């Protein structure tokens, strides 16, 4: 093969590539031939030593393709209704977009070196935009020193978003979408000043929600704590295995708290509260309540009902004490403590813990 034939074969491999890319590679090879000829080598010799480069060209083409795709998609954010972000080891930081566009940038807190072991891939499936952090395949070895942050801006015109990380945290602020979903394995989930329905799942990370407005919340952790502060919830359902649960809310229709060994705490106003823990304590202070059901196996159960107009309350403890401190006269009818208009239905149970009821 002579120079002309060799360059033609490379050219044909790069036909779909950007002109700039193609020209640069061809110029490099052309220069190589010229320098080699000046050293007295034949075109055939040079072509043979350059060898077959098809495989590498294919890989470069793919990388190029990903790069050009990224530029386009960021512009056309009207094409999709949902966004899914997979941050892998990166922290996922989500803020509202000022431009009605989905934008994102991956950076590294520590050595800038590590970031080159990762790339971002962007694809559209139906009405969903998927943004994924991936490890590059050409890395030498699987060392992971990266301390990555994926910053994403979301327009408020989106319908829903799913934000995921494996070892990073998921951090949302001022996002007002109808539906949000956050997942992390070992990272924390922090949602501040957002609104709408929210699902959050972590294994060992904590879930913290502040100034949340409205919607249905479903939160679950294995060993992390759950802390919520907000108002006007339709429903909050929380599950944790060993983490504590703490809720402070202005108004909620329904609150469900379940933990195996964690404590449960609620302060605020809710119509319907249920709390269940095996070895944790339960401490509830609730206004506007219509139905309350609290259970612990070995923990104490404490309920405070300020401004309560009346209740019928079932109280059960096997080996603990019962301490009642109500400002109104009450009586026991069958197994129920009764006073006032009996409008609030309460059930308090513990096996070996104490029960406290006050207003």
């Amino acid at each position, binding site marked *: 093969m002579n120079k002309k034939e060799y360059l033609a074969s490379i050219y044909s491999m790069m036909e779909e590539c950007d002109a700039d890319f193609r020209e640069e590679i061809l110029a490099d090879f052309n220069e190589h031939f*010229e320098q*080699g000829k000046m050293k007295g080598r034949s075109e055939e010799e040079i072509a043979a*030593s350059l060898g077959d480069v098809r495989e*590498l060209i294919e890989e470069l083409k793919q990388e190029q393709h990903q790069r050009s795709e990224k530029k386009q998609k960021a512009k056309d954010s009207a094409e999709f209704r949902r966004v899914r972000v997979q941050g892998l080891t990166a922290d996922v930081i989500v803020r509202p977009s000022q431009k009605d566009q989905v934008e994102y940038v991956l950076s590294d807190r520590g050595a800038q*070196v590590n970031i080159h072991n990762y790339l971002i891939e962007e694809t559209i499936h139906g009405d969903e935009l998927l943004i994924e952090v991936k490890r590059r*395949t050409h890395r*030498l070895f699987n060392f992971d020193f990266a301390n990555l942050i994926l910053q994403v801006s979301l327009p408020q015109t989106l319908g829903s978003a799913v934000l995921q990380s494996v070892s990073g945290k998921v951090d949302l602020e001022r996002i007002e979408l109808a539906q949000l979903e956050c997942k992390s394995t070992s990272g924390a989930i922090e949602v501040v000043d957002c609104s709408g329905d929210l699902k959050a799942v972590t294994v060992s990370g904590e879930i913290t929600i502040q100034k949340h407005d409205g919607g249905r919340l479903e939160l679950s952790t294995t060993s992390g704590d759950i802390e919520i502060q907000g108002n006007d919830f339709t429903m909050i359902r929380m599950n944790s295995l060993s983490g504590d649960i703490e809720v402070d809310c202005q108004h909620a229709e329904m609150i469900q708290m379940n933990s195996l060994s964690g404590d449960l705490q609620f302060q605020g106003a809710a119509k319907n509260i249920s709390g269940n823990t095996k070895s944790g304590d339960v401490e509830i202070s609730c206004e506007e309540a219509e139905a309350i059901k609290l259970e612990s196996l070995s923990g104490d159960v404490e309920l405070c009902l300020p401004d309560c107009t009346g209740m019928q309350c079932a109280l059960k403890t096997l080996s603990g004490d019962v301490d009642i401190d109500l400002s109104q006269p009450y009586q026991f009818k069958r197994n129920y403590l009764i006073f006032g208009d009996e409008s609030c239905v309460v059930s308090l149970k513990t096996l070996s813990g104490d029960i406290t009821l006050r207003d």
Partner: protein
Amino acid sequence: MNTQFKKGVLELCVLAQLSQGDKYGYELTESISEKMTLATGTLYLILKRLKDEGYFETYLVESAGGPARKYYRISEKGRAYYRQMRKEWYEFIAQVDALLKEPENHD
């Protein structure tokens, strides 16, 4: 040998060569192919990729009686990347070496 692996190693070789001083393409392929058997054309694609990542800068120098030579210069980012890769490489070969060694008193 696995291409991905080989490409990683070639990246390391290119970074090592350029960390010793600026070189133009032909010069670089010569110095690497002296020590190692390979299709030298792959080096140009590795150079292009590393350049696009910002590890190298290029500049042209006129040469007497031939076309201008494109020189490659390693950037600060490239040096940092090279240090990291080199560290990983030494750790890796030490591990492989330990595995390849026959136990001394083997029955």
